[in-house]
């Protein structure tokens, strides 16, 4: 019960801090929107794709572009979540509290999931408008895929953000360490998003969703368990 309260208070503290420093969230949302806009300008709406669906190239590759935008923006959010802990030495303060440090890890992961989901709730509709994607009819399935992918992203990202928090080159090191590990999640998320948006004629969706579920189960467990070691000096 004590550990559940500790998880909750870490989530509460991070959510409150994020709500009060709106600048960080606004900057992230603006950055994600800008990335999507640059892709839209770079590719343009008129290049056709030779295939049965007959949609434009931009619409065809939209799932990939969307996840690239989410990944780039998410790294900023994850880095920011530990930047807050660096002010006034709060990270060391966390380390010096008694009790199970896994509760701190779990709390930080949940807080980062909430931040990323809030950011996605803003970015996905923007992508829908820019890339002419019909989102509303597929929203429940899409939300499921995004939640699964975001959980894995947040778990691994929180772990590496904590690991690199004390490094001078943390802005560079975080994506360098995180992106290679994220390859299965990105692959599965892009494929699953594509299948939800364009139809699952070959019944492949469940395989990609299973991959996301397995990745989440493994990495949420491993990252939470190992969080105590990351907090060590």
């Amino acid at each position: 019960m004590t550990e559940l309260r500790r998880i909750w208070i870490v989530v509460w503290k991070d959510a409150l801090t994020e709500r009060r420093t709106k600048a960080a969230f606004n900057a992230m949302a603006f950055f994600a929107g800008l990335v999507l806009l640059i892709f839209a300008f770079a590719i343009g709406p008129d290049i056709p794709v030779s295939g049965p669906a007959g949609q434009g190239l931009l619409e065809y590759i939209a799932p990939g572009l969307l996840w690239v935008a989410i990944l780039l923006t998410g790294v900023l959010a994850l880095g920011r979540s530990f930047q807050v802990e660096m002010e006034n030495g709060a990270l060391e303060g966390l380390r010096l509290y008694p009790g199970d440090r896994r509760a701190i890890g779990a709390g930080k992961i949940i807080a980062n999931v909430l931040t990323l989901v809030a950011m996605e709730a803003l970015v996905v509709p923007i992508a829908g408008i820019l890339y002419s994607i019909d989102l509303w009819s597929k929203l429940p399935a899409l939300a499921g895929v995004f939640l699964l992918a975001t959980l894995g992203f947040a778990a691994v990202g929180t772990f590496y953000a904590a690991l690199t928090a004390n490094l001078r080159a943390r802005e560079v090191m975080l994506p360098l360490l995180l992106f290679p590990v994220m390859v299965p999640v990105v692959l599965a998320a892009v494929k699953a998003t594509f299948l939800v948006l364009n139809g699952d004629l070959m019944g492949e969706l469940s395989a990609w969703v299973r991959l996301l579920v397995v990745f989440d189960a493994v990495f949420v467990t491993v990252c939470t368990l190992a969080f105590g070691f990351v907090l060590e000096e």
Partner: protein
Amino acid sequence: MSHVASTASIPAVQTERLAKRFARTWALQGVSLTIGTGESVCLLGPNGSGKTTLLRVLATATRPTSGQARVFGHESIDDGDAVRRRIGLLSHRTFLYGELTALENLRFAAVMYGLELDHRQLEAALADVGLDYAADHRVRGFSQGMTQRLALARATLHAPPLLLLDEPYSALDAAGLQLLDQFLIRYVGGGGTVIVVTHQVERGLAACERAIALKAGRLVFDGRSDAFRSSPEAAGVGDWTR
């Protein structure tokens, strides 16, 4: 303020040949000392003498390179969690969150310490350090002195039997200094053990009955505070004005 009473027969702090090296520099070299429960100790020494490092080792914030440190019989490395339950650390860094209010910072700390304190108890903790009027103010807008007071309230929220204070007098105004002096008297009177690291030598010696001096990571003086004033080690440890 009451503290863990069952620890009275065990030394609050015991170190054996404690050493800590940062790259090629030895911050601590073979420091062995014992501090009994209920003692107030002023830890003195020039800059770089290892005072803060010793405090950080005791607080489990850093691992010693060799030797042992025990807090109430608990080994600082193998039994770090038990040590952390028994210490309060006031560091150079305040461990506070600027975007949270004073009350919210204490609420966070209380839950992290595993305490179930209600709103009234948290306000009382703020009143103890003279910050009740700023309960709902965000810490980002606090002066250094207010931040120091709040950091003290945070560090002592769980009534730890051992209090480690690193330069507690810095940034405090006259009222803050008086408040801290009274706080320490109450704390030691209640059975607590305190180690104060300071460069304000006279104030530190006045607040503590025992003085320990370090130089280049080595223990050079360990005795009563009165005796320290006339010792050869007294020169060069800091500011003697109050």
